[in-house]
């Protein structure tokens, strides 16, 4: 038995306390680091010495590992629940924007424009020979068509922004894929000797946290490496990362020729399958026509608005064409398109005939120009507003007011649903996050009490060295004078 055994034991305590203090220090330093999970040292006593006839004599302590405190079950739950929140956040934002575009209820909405258009017809009906009433009708027609034009324009630009965001997210996914694969490699290299790459693992988990909001992912760990897949297709496998095609291929946008739509495609040409996540939300609101159980996104509202403009113009033109102008002409349109294509919300405008000459508002059912007070056609136009077969081959059907009201309530109800879904999802994610924080978060009080504890154990170990020192002082320096 070496005489230095006590000394070594004391030193091991000193070193262990020091390492514990360093870990405490690291925890405190990282209290605000995103994705950081607290670390804890595993401390074990050293192998004891077997002293014959006495038993085992302890030889001190050793730090055997530095561990990350983290519950991977909570991580998997979090990644699963984060995607729906991403999806519904996007939907809520977009539907709110669409509601602002329709601007209902307000003094600058389709309802208001429609009300004023028909009110101007009423005024004209009481005095069809008066130019000022005709000018009023033209003014209100102008406001009405311009409203449709700008609403259509705004919806298209909302769609354009969503489209841009999709391409940004494709780029992001590729970057996440590369970074996760890179970390897989680094972690693997560090952990070859059995130790844990705690901080790198935190970083990797954080990347997966962020990715899980964008797309629905599935992550599994084998041999310390993450395999991440999206909809069954592998994004990261070990050190190999897959990519989505970027710049993304595009297809024509049937509702806006000027803005091509980015497609989601793996580099090998396969389609990307999404079930939830921000990207799915973006795709839904960008492409959702409302047909074939698709989501009611921006195209749904553009199409409804186009349908409204088209049928409104058609029905009004039909009546107006029967009427006679002040010069006794008939067959005049009220509305036309400004590009020769079929009338929709973006190209609807007042017919050139009426624009050029107020006399061309055909109020009269009589071809005789002297029948100035004949207001039959105006009355018929006014009646059209109550015609519940005005929209008959469309969904919704009914009068122009019914049609727009129904579109707006769809928007309102969908908006309400998106708010609810997002809130529900957020509650779930917050709950999981709280549990993760509870498990992995750094508690300052805890660290401070540990610090005091480790400081004291360090002091005590140091005191032990002093004690042993004084033992040797006695035996070496103060006993006898042999050899001196």
């Amino acid at each position, binding site marked *: 038995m070496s005489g230095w055994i006590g000394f070594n034991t004391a030193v091991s305590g000193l070193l262990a306390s020091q390492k514990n203090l360093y870990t405490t220090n690291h925890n405190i330093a990282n*209290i*605000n680091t995103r994705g950081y999970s607290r670390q804890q040292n595993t401390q074990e006593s050293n192998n004891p010495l077997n002293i014959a006839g006495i038993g085992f004599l302890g030889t001190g302590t050793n730090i055997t590992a530095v561990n990350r405190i983290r519950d991977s079950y909570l991580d998997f739950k979090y990644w699963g629940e984060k995607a729906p929140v991403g999806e519904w956040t996007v939907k809520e934002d977009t*539907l*709110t924007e669409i*509601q*602002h575009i*329709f601007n*209902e*209820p307000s003094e600058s909405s389709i*309802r*208001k424009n*429609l*009300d*004023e258009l*028909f*009110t101007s017809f*009423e*005024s004209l*009906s*009481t*005095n069809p*020979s008066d130019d000022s009433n005709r000018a009023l009708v033209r003014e209100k027609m102008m406001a009405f068509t311009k409203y449709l034009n700008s609403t259509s324009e705004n919806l298209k630009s909302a769609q354009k922004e969503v489209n841009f965001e999709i391409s940004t997210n494709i780029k992001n996914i590729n970057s996440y894929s590369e970074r996760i694969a890179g970390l897989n490699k680094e972690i693997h290299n560090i952990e070859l000797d059995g130790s844990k790459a705690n901080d790198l693992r935190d970083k990797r988990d954080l990347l997966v946290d962020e990715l899980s909001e964008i797309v629905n992912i599935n992550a599994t760990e084998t041999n310390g490496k993450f395999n991440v897949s999206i909809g069954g297709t592998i994004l990261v496998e070990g050190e190999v990362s897959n990519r989505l095609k970027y710049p993304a291929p595009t297809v024509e946008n049937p509702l806006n020729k000027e803005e091509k739509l980015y497609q989601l495609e793996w580099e090998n040409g396969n389609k990307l399958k999404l079930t939830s996540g921000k990207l799915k939300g973006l795709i839904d609101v960008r492409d959702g026509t409302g047909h074939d159980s698709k989501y009611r996104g921006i195209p749904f509202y553009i199409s409804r608005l186009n349908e409204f403009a088209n049928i409104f113009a058609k029905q009004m033109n039909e009546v107006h064409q029967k009427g006679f102008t002040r010069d006794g002409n008939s067959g005049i349109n009220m509305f036309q398109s400004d590009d020769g294509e079929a009338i929709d919300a973006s190209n609807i405008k007042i017919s050139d005939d009426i624009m050029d000459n107020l006399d061309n508002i055909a109020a*009269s059912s*009589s071809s*005789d120009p*002297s*029948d*100035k*007070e*004949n*207001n039959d056609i105006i*009355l018929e136009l*006014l009646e059209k507003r*109550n015609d519940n077969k005005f929209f008959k081959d469309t969904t919704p059907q009914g009068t122009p*007011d019914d049609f727009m*009201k129904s579109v*707006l*309530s769809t*928007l*309102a*109800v*969908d*908006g*309400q649903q*998106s708010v609810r879904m997002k809130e529900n999802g957020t509650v779930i994610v917050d709950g999981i*996050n*709280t*549990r993760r*924080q*509870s*498990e992995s*978060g*750094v*508690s*300052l*009080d*805890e660290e*401070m*009490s540990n610090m*005091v504890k480790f400081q004291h154990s360090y002091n005590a170990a140091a005191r032990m060295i002093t004690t042993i020192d004084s033992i040797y002082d006695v035996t070496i320096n103060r006993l006898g004078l042999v050899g001196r």
Partner: protein
Amino acid sequence: MRITNNMMISNMMTNVNKNLQGLSKVQDKMQTGKKFQLPSDDPIGVSKSLKYYTDLSRIEQYKRNVDDATSWMEVTESAVSQIGDILERARELTVQAANDGTNTGEDKEKVSAEIKQLREQIIKVANTKHAGRAIFSGYKTADDLIDSDGNYNIDLNTDEKTKYNVGSADTIDVNVVGTELFGLSNNGYKQDVSKGDTSEMIRVFDKLIQGLDSDDVTSIDESITEIDETVSNVLSVRAKIGAKTNRLELNKNRLEDQTLSVTKLLSKNEDVDIAEVVIELKTRETVYQASLHAGARIIQPSLIDFLR
């Protein structure tokens, strides 16, 4: 459960944020006075509001139409009443002239001269304009009804009635078509006329004038009956106008009532109860401040504060 500092801070942030959001919603309500800002706040409420606004705008327009119709009818009524006065005076003069014993030839000349004046007056009234529109000319309001010879100046059909909307699915004919009042010579008051046809009323006057000028007593006597027939037609036209004016008045009252009730409904549907909102605002303010206070206490003390 193990509680960590960041957990408490993020919980606090979530809660403070939630309270602030609630506060901001109530403040929106206060500032706009409306229960909802976006359709998604209350889909049913918003769609109700849309209907009420449209109803209101229609009712307002119907009211304007009723006013227009009323003023048109007032002008018509006053014109018809003038015609009535003219006919009365004409009848008086004719009866006087018919009393052959007391009238000298000179008297009859005077009567004839006045009757001629009255005839002119009738033509003038027949061409009465309201805001530049000839009221008896059917659809041809730019043209005079009767020319200076007492003949129709235009082709006029009895169905040239101008209809105004004075309520939902409620229209009213506002104009009296000239032939209803002035008639077609020897053919009554329900005939279409062509340009150049003579008016019945003028024919009666012409016959009377001729009778007076030629001192034809039988003819003058006949004229009295004919004038009476004309008067009775004028009275019936007047009665119709009166009935319509009455209806318009009732309509106006009903529209006023509707404005009131729809405005009430609209207000009930989307206006906030200020007392309620103020209380809600105060409550939310208190909750928000409490959460801030609690937050301040949660964040500060830790073991560090007690280790010296």
